[in-house]
């Protein structure tokens, strides 16, 4: 193991730039650890060893030639299997896209590579992002480093494990209803879901477009800030991206403590239904924030009562639409239609999509069909607007909102398979910020009595990723929850 090596993205980039290590050495350590632990954890669907070695070699040659290095020079980064990279496969965890290679690169990956990042491989995920355990992947389950019988959360479970197992200091995920924050919480790492539109979605294989956000996971808030500054900003390839915002890294250290900040505790997200250990960690987090000078106030988001139902109506309707393109005609899996087009498409979709995806397509198709859409969708849109208004009212009084990220810590593999409704309720605390398009940050904050990590979620007003990260940085300077590791 390389215990003496730098472990954050910021430290690695500094060390590579200073010449105290090389990109090739950093990558070798990363690949060594992956080789040792992957047979157990299965965080990656594919490791791009050759591609990564070529990228690391280029950075080391650039440094030797005196070419200025980017802010992520030599940093190994894991990429969720739903972001496309020209010439490489991307399957979104689905049989439907087995073997599919993209001719173009996601904007976020283009920007990271331009900053010197070394992309090491694609990580496992719930099929098309639909799941909270990474078990709906066509590539088999991923295991939590904190217990090999435990789920890592999902859908970005592979990315969370890549950071939790110290494969990479930084991993890219995507978050539609909590898919970055919840696995970050269950694996004891920090996870950021920026506000909707802050990071271009171009190259992200869509699940539910009005909710999808590209996010990241890391050990430290500082690395998340570094990532956001490189990833964010308007992009011609995504007309919903932007506007440009000032960099967050510059203001990251402006606060020494939390004095002058008011943290709201919406009772709907902090009430009954929380696991006892999670509730205890939440109280400890509030106490820590208060001890650092924050004012803690109660508040309410009444529309949260309907958030999960609203989320599943909107997400499934958009998913049914976004996944209509997988028809077996142009790319992806195709089954023989015995000379009939409709049979070919039906059989291809039945064979290519897993059960959870088919369930959500059916739900979304039904709820958006003529005669039903008024009752379901018009109501869901109204509730979404109400939820946005509730958040706006809360942010008129508070700077940030706090709740646990997940009502429960990591649970055993296979335990949620037969009960989708219970699994959907796991998203209860994360979907409100998704519906409102707000930035949210999950930080590791304590553990259950048997050692499973617990995450706390901070939510900020639109465009206030800067405040979110400043507060996270203060908390990480005064606590060491984020340094706790599952594996030596």
């Amino acid at each position, binding site marked *: 193991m390389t215990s003496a090596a730098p472990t954050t993205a910021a430290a690695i980039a500094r060390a590579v730039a200073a010449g105290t290590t090389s990109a090739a050495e950093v990558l070798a350590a990363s690949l060594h650890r992956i080789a040792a632990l992957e047979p157990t954890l299965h965080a990656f669907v594919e490791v791009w060893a050759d591609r990564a070695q070529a990228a690391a070699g280029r950075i080391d040659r650039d440094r030797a030639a005196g070419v200025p290095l980017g802010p992520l020079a030599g940093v190994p980064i894991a990429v969720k299997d739903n*972001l*496309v990279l020209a010439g490489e496969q*991307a399957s*979104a965890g689905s049989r439907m*896209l087995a073997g*599919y290679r*993209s*001719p*173009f690169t*996601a904007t976020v990956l283009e920007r990271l590579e331009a900053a010197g990042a070394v992309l090491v491989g694609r990580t496992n995920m719930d099929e098309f992002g639909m799941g909270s355990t990474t078990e709906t992947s066509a590539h088999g389950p991923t295991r939590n480093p904190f217990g090999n019988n435990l789920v890592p959360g999902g859908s970005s479970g592979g990315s969370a494990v890549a950071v939790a197992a110290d494969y990479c200091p930084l991993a890219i995920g995507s978050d539609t209803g909590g898919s970055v924050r919840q696995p970050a919480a269950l694996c004891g790492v920090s996870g950021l879901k920026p506000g909707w539109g802050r990071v271009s*979605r*171009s*190259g*992200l*294989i*869509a699940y*539910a*477009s*009005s909710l999808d956000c590209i996010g990241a996971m890391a050990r430290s808030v500082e690395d998340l800030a570094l990532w956001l500054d490189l990833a964010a900003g308007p992009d*011609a*390839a*995504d*007309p*919903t991206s932007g506007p440009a915002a000032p960099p967050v890294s510059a203001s990251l250290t402006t606060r020494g403590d939390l004095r002058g900040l008011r943290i709201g505790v919406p009772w709907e997200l902090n009430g009954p239904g929380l696991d006892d250990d999670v509730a205890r960690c939440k109280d400890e987090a509030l106490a820590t924030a208060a001890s650092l000078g924050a004012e803690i106030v109660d508040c309410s988001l009444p529309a949260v009562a309907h958030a999960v139902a609203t989320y599943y109506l909107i997400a499934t*309707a*958009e998913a*049914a*639409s976004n*996944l*209509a*393109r997988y*028809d077996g*005609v*142009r*790319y992806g899996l195709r089954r023989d239609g015995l000379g009939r*087009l*409709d049979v070919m*498409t039906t059989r291809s979709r039945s064979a290519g999509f897993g059960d959870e995806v088919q369930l959500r397509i059916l739900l979304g*198709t039904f709820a*958006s*069909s*003529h005669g039903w*859409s008024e009752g379901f*969708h018009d109501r869901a849109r109204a509730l979404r607007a109400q939820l946005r208004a509730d958040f706006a009212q809360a942010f008129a009084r508070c700077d940030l909102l706090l709740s646990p990220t997940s009502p429960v810590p990591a649970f055993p593999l296979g335990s949620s398979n037969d009960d989708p409704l219970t699994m959907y309720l796991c998203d209860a605390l994360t979907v409100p910020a998704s519906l409102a398009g707000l930035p949210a940050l999950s930080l590791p904050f304590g553990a259950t009595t048997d050692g499973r990590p617990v995450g706390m979620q901070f939510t900020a007003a639109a465009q206030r990723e800067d405040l979110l990260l400043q507060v996270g940085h203060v908390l990480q300077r005064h606590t060491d929850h984020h340094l706790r590791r599952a594996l030596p």
Partner: protein
Amino acid sequence: MSRFVTVIGLEVHVQLATASKLFSPAPAAALGDPNTRVHAIDLGLPGVLPRPNQKAIELAMRASLALGAVVQPLSRFAREHYFYPDLPKGYQISQFDQPLALGGSITLPDGHRCRLHRLHVEEDAGKLTHTDIGTLVDLNRAGVPLVEIVSEPDLRSPAQAHAFLSELRHVLRFTGVSDCDMELGSLRCDANISLMPVGSETFGTKVELKNLNSLKMVQRALEYEERRQTAVLAAGGRVAAETRGWHDELGESRSQRSKEQAPDYRYLPDPDLPPLVIDEASIAEAQAALGELPAARSERYRAAFGLSEVDVRVLCSERAIGDWFEQAVAVGGEPKAVCNWIVADVLPAMHERNLDLATFPISPLRLASLLRLCDAGAVTLVAAKKVFRHLLEHDLEPAGALRALGLDRTTDPAVLQPFVLAAIAALPEAAAAVRAGKDKALDALKGHVMRASTGRADPAVVETLLRAAIAPPS
């Protein structure tokens, strides 16, 4: 007289004349080898997002304003879902409950006004070709920008439907929105038709007609359907609500699907596209770019130039023709003469050479110069036509061409006298008739001289010389 009133509404799709597609940078021309004009966006590859084409929105606004429709300050794109290999994403991006423009109208030559319901922007689908080896998919057309224009059910006869389409095509061509070529599919039309008893105010059951690939087909199909529904109703039957396809070669329509089989498009606001917000300033800009409309221009030409209805129709058929005409008039061309030359010479030469007026080798200024030479008597009409032909091939001023062709008019008696004597020798009867006081016979002699002199002879001088030669002073 029929006991029924015919009620017709039209739904017209028009391809916008943009360089690139509605949501991708691929060329919008649907021609070319199959699948050579497609971008990842048109293929609906995983991870692509639509990128709205500002030029298409501008042309759609121009169409709206040209038709008197009200451009909405906020409109929205929506997804219309169905599975078919011509539709790569499994949905077409269109507009549903919030279209780009509402209202407007088209006035027919008979004075009848047909109101418009709405105008919206959407993307075209690809094209399928069914062959022996299977169905072939060409996605060159997929994503080409369209506007859909929906009329109110204000048309009362198939002839009015024909007139509506030809007026619509005229306005959209004139304003540069589209080339509106029904044969190439850049203008496509579906028609709704129903009958109701005379005196009724309740519309009958409507039938939708598809596969109408020319203006004539639209009229023929509607006439057929008018007869068919009349027969059904007259026999006490009920017209079924259905979609029928027109088979022009058979001269009949056939049922394609009943109302119950109508697909559920599951309209969904497109979350990948922000709402289309159009402010007053951009509407004003589009209004300015619109320029003078054909109706206003026709009125002006009638009033200012005293031209005939036929002339006005030709000059106002396309903006470029009227513009060319006005440029020639502005530099001194006599309006009626310029118009005659445009109709008889400029447009035929242009079509013959497959050119447009922008690349036509003779400028309006040169035509006006040529007309001045005619007026000044420097060139005969016959010679002027030769000069015109010469100018098509050579970059010269008309005076230069005249000299180059040796066609400059001659008034020199020494040059003309041999032609005069030759004419008298060739046509002795005509000469005798003139001598006998029949002046009309002079024309045959003059014609002979003009032909023999290849049009160079000045007719007035020729006449003087002829009279002198036929009746010498006594």
